[in-house]
């Protein structure tokens, strides 16, 4: 080779294309057809190679590639040439077929003006939402937007406002699932959180503002991941699911959809099951035997999901908000083919206390089931609401109230299964008959009582008073005796207190035991009609399955109606 060539990527040996020659001979009609074909392609090519490559450099798929993971079939694109550039205005709206179901989809195209919102594509979104509402099909949003398109001025903000409003009107009409891809701030976060579920993969961000604003306003140095990564949102419940990557998020959409109805007038998809509804569940009996024969006896924690697994068809269930507030489990599963929601205290985590986070997690899930005709099985096993300053400061009174209100408002078939502990306020606010339960069943190890073991203070008030007096007397007597054997006053006093305390604790424990034996059981609940019947662990699937089936035979799926309540 002579001289230094200037490298390029053009193949000089490629057969030359003679595309140009055809154009001259084309008729006006043919030119129009060609033009139309070009227009149809435009949204897919508008980003340009460079922007597509940039998206890929960030290890992110383009909007078209994401849609491909959701559905093998090509999408039906709506308003494909929206916007002054006829390029769809950085937003794809479409109807896609996901596993045989029609789904309304919107997806920001980050390769076109960074997926931003201009003056009109808020209306584009609103049109899609309206279509989804009218036809009663679920909505999926693939968010990847830098926010409002600044050159559009206030128009961009109006665009968001229009979308917010339309999406709010869709809320409760059809379920919606939002994936958070890329980097979304401001309206780009606000809008999707109006959806029913938010899914966030690793290496993505969303938040009220980006890190730049935080630095500017507060001087805080923080990474996007620390500010609005999946760890942050998964823990707060702002993201319902976190996944390792974009593909995982899209697959979660498909799995979640398999449990959801198209709209609020339908029942969720029924799947005939090969798992017999009368399958016995002796494993639950063994689980209790194993658990309660541990040294901690009835105070031994266990994973409530094992019972959910035993109940569900083929043991399959799907947890909602699985990484947050694990002291409560919210899950969707199928029982006799019907989709059922589970709201279950989980003693394996923090003894199953109800705190602010678990109350809000429950409330949100119950309200969702209520809107979309999903029956709910509550499983109660909790020592109660978690007391303390931290909880009060965080507003546990209102959070607990939100859960209780959601329960009171619940109109779908609802069953309470008393598993073990159910006391006081927690019992009162957890789907009992007065709050509207259709059925209350109790396992033999149910311990319903007005209070936990602390209740002995009231029940055995007199005995305890006597014991305390006796303790003081003993302490004094011991002190005198010890002092007389030559011990110093300090020593004698300490020793006397220790021995007296020891005696008192032993006596008090006897009362605790007596209280547990006499009062912490299902008897009173049964006698007062607070419990319909006892269910043996072996019969749990059968009883719950036939009951749900009965309830649903006499339940007409329909949108909710009635007055709006304050607070939720």
């Amino acid at each position: 080779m002579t001289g230094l060539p200037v490298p390029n990527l053009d193949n000089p040996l490629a057969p030359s294309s003679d595309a140009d020659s055809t154009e001259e001979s084309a008729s006006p009609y043919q030119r129009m057809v060609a033009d139309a074909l070009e227009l149809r392609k435009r949204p897919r090519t508008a980003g340009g190679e460079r922007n597509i490559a940039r998206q890929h450099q960030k290890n992110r798929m383009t909007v078209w590639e994401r849609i491909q993971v959701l559905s093998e079939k090509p999408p039906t694109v709506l308003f494909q040439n929206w916007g002054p550039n006829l390029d769809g205005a950085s937003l794809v709206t479409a109807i896609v077929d996901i596993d045989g179901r029609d789904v309304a989809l919107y997806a920001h195209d980050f390769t076109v003006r960074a997926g931003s919102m201009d003056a009109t594509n808020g209306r584009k979104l609103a049109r899609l939402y309206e279509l989804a509402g009218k036809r009663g099909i679920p909505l999926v949003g693939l968010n990847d937007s830098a926010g409002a398109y600044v050159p559009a001025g206030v128009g961009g903000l109006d665009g968001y406002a229009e979308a917010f409003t339309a999406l709010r009107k869709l809320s409760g009409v059809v379920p919606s699932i939002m994936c958070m891809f890329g980097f979304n701030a401001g309206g780009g976060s606000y809008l999707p959180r109006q959806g029913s579920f938010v899914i966030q993969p690793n290496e993505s961000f969303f938040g009220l503002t980006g890190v730049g604003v935080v630095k500017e306003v507060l001087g805080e140095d923080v990474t996007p991941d620390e500010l609005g990564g999946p760890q942050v949102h998964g823990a707060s419940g702002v993201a319902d699911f976190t996944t390792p990557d974009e593909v995982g998020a899209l697959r979660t959409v498909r799995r979640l959809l398999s449990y959801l109805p198209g709209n609020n007038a339908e029942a969720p998809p029924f799947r005939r099951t090969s798992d017999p509804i009368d399958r016995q569940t002796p494993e639950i009996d063994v689980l209790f035997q194993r658990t309660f024969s541990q040294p901690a006896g009835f105070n031994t924690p266990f994973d409530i999901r094992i019972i959910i697994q035993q109940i569900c068809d083929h043991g399959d269930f799907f947890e909602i908000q699985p990484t947050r507030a694990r002291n409560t489990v919210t899950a969707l599963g199928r029982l006799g083919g019907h989709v059922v929601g589970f709201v279950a205290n989980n003693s394996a985590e923090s003894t199953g206390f109800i705190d602010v986070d678990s109350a809000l997690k429950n409330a949100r899930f119950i309200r969702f089931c209520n809107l979309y005709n999903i029956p709910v099985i509550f499983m109660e096993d909790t020592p109660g609401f978690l007391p303390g300053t931290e909880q009060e400061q965080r507003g546990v009174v209102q959070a607990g109230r939100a859960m209780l209100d959601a329960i009171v408002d619940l109109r779908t078939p609802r069953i309470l299964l008393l598993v073990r502990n159910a006391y006081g306020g927690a019992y009162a606010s957890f789907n009992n008959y007065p709050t509207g339960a259709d059925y209350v069943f109790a396992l033999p190890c149910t311990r319903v009582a007005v209070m936990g073991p602390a209740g002995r203070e009231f029940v055995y008030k007199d005995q305890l008073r006597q014991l305390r007096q006796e303790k003081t007397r003993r302490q004094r007597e011991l002190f005198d005796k010890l002092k007389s054997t030559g011990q110093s006053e300090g020593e004698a006093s300490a020793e006397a207190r220790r021995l007296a305390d020891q005696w008192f604790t032993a006596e008090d424990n006897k009362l605790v035991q007596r209280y547990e034996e006499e009062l912490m059981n299902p008897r009173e609940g049964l006698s007062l009609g607070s419990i319909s019947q006892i269910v043996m662990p072996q019969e749990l699937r059968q009883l719950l399955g036939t009951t749900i089936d009965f309830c649903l035979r006499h339940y007409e799926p329909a949108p909710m109606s009635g007055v709006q309540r304050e607070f939720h």
Partner: protein
Amino acid sequence: MSRYSTNPLVFENRRRAQGATDWERSFACEDVRPLLICRGPVRKEAMDIFRQLGIEHYGILLSEKDSIAFARALAPELRELTDQSRVHRVPDYSGIDQAERAERIAQIIEVAKAGGYNAIFAGYGFMAEEEALVSAIEQAGLTFIGPCSRTVRDAGRKDVAKRTALACDISVTPGVDNVCALALLRRHPTGEALAALVSEKNLRVDGALASEPADAAEQVLDASYRAGVELVSVDELCEEIQRQVTQLFEKYPDRRLRLKAIGGGGGKGQRLLEGPRSFQGGSPEACLAQAAAQAPEKAREILSEVKATGPSDNKNLLIELNIDSNRHQEVQLLGNGDWCIALGSRDCSLQMHEQKLLEISVTEPSIQQAIEKAEAAGLAARAGSLKEELGILQRMEAEAERFGAATGLDSVSTWECIVDGTHHYFMEMNTRIQVEHRVTELCYALKFVNPDNADEHFTVNSLIEAMVLLARHGERLPRPERVTRNLDSIEMRLNATNDALAPHAGGTILSWSAPLAGEIRDDQGISVPNPDTGLFMPYTLAGAYDSNIALMLTVGASRREACEALAEVMRRARIRGRDLETNLEFHYGLIHWLLSWDVRARMGTRFVPPYLAAVAALVEQGGRLDPQRMLLELGNRYGDDEAGLARKETALRKLTLLCRPLARLLRHPHVFSGWLSLSRRWGAFDGDTWQWQRNPLAVLKDLYTYLSMDPQPDQPPAYVIWPEDQRLLEEGLSFYRQLDERLGHEAGATWPSVPATPPADLADLWPQIGAAHAGFQSGLELLAVPQLIAQRTGFYELSVADDLAVHIPDQLQPPAVHAAARQILAPPPTASGDQVLAESGGMFYSRQAPDLPPFVAVGDHFSPGDPLYVIEVMKMFNVVRARYGGTVRKILVANDGTVVKKGQPIFEIEPDQAEDGGVGDDSGPDLMAELLDQLAKAG
């Protein structure tokens, strides 16, 4: 799902009742009603085989760990077996001590009788070789689908088996097989003393006491186990073991010893003792003493592992010379009590932590073929080595058949050997079907011919099917002919382990790609979708059992083909999950190492640790490199004249095309290793530069294929090459194709394909061709980086010689290097200075055994290397040792047996001194600069 349950290699109609002749139909098995009492992949396999045999009434046991111990770990077999009357609950499959085992055996018999079963199948579970179980089944009038109690008794106890083997003139290893008796004789050395002991303890000895004290001691011990009287304490036994070990080490100071429980199996109940030579410092006597001093602790570990700690447990151990350069081979046997036939062997040498990883068929026809090929190719050393191999196989098969006959084998068994050079030594016979039995059945079919009419015959393609046939019609079955189905087959064990091959519990499988054609996947049913919804069901590998997830097998018309098919299966397999780690990448890397050197390389059982060290060295060097930065830096070095800038521009156009696969290599050590093995023949080192002998652009395309990132329409776009990268790659390749065509070269045959001076007809285009060539090649220099790292670490020194011997370089030998490699491949959780964090998830124990004190208590000081606690992961008891010294301030895990998560704090400690920073990471940029210089030199 179609391929999962329709692969013709393992799915067929096996109903003899539908056979062609009366004779064949007389072997129907529909009336067998088996109860399956094991778990693991064999349970699903057996369920499938039973159904194919037309057996409808089969049942399974279901343990608590398979149902209620963990969420999402429900036995997948239940998705297909929904008839609850055939699922029988038990606490576990084998019981944790002898008393529980006896209870479980009684329970199994009861379940079988009440459930209308007439046969028991035990797979390869712990119970399969339990003589008490087999006898109880026989006495209950049930059929045991497996060897009879006599075979189990004569072959099952390793000490008895060794004596039988000696009697049959079978080659065995030197060692001590009666240490328990020796310990007893230490205190009661004579016949009189033993007789006195018998009367003192009121023992009932079978027959009269033998005159030879050693024999008498055995009788007395047997009687004591029956009576539940402890004659030899564990302490005494350990003392004796130490004494015997000392004597053996005196004789063989260069060797290692192996301690084996007589009732062990499947890698359990075995420990290696390092020889005196591996202890440094001090006189030979001191080293010997140190080597022998390991024995008691290891012996205790073994006894608690096989749960032989009670007074009625036989605690005898075998002490044997370990054949260090050994390979592990095992002959598959099949018999009906009259005849016994060997079905070739399996090479199971590739192991880690005494667990097999890869199992390869060894059969006469395959070796014959390989010998012919080697001779035809003039590879004398290879042919010679293969002939040795054939000789060993033939001797092993003959001895195995003798042994099988001597023990009355009336089902299947595995006759295990170690092979050292041209010698083989019999180790033990496992009287059960083994995990790797498919390797054999894929190579040999069994052709049964009517002895009265040679035209009537049928063929059996499954060993489990053969077991059922033998159990039902054993005495009527004629000796079969073995018929070659496939010349070769290979099995890999997919385990839940990290890159250092240590167990990793607690992960959840969320998706698993469908099997390829020709892939056999024995996965316990994990891939069976939810029957109602067709969706994959998440499955948690809770760690309640061993780490095995699945077995994956392929076949081929040569060993190479079988390995290539397995490599392809692994390439396309996508298993994704939460907190999930598997050894899939390890296997993928290793199969390429084998394919690259020689699939018949004689890998010994000690191959894996040095191999891991070689792999770890790669990431230690290359793991910190950032390909994107390197490409930018490379571009900057092109100069800022027009040509230089254009070259940089064209290089940066390849940013994702080049850097995505390279980054993947650098982040995944085993994938890196496999790539080196695959690509090492595509170029050569010239000093410290690497010269490709193929077009680097074609190499890049192959890299994408190797990483399974080639365009695949059914895969998510994020997992394969980006479309614009694919276009650029294809444009480049088509340029070179067209150039080759114009130059009259065979496509891709020569490199570089651009001659220095143009042929006449291309003179006009030559400047443009030069520009395109420079453009397409710019940046591809980076593809040499893996090779340069391999050169720096001496990766290619781990090699295979012409005679198939594996060369392990000295730098990969020391145990300290292996330990360091584990740290590099699977870095432990980073601790804050004052806490000791759990190295892995699992069950925590503060002590070696329940009757021993905890390793450390509050206030204790520990030094680096001191044992701190035991973590049980997937049935492996790992003693965790201190990395640095300190004092225990608080123990944060209250009880033994508590389940801990990886990274969970275990102790609060006061470290002896702050750790210094260690080796700095500042070598990164220097390394990058050096590599770039090397790349520049290559031109």
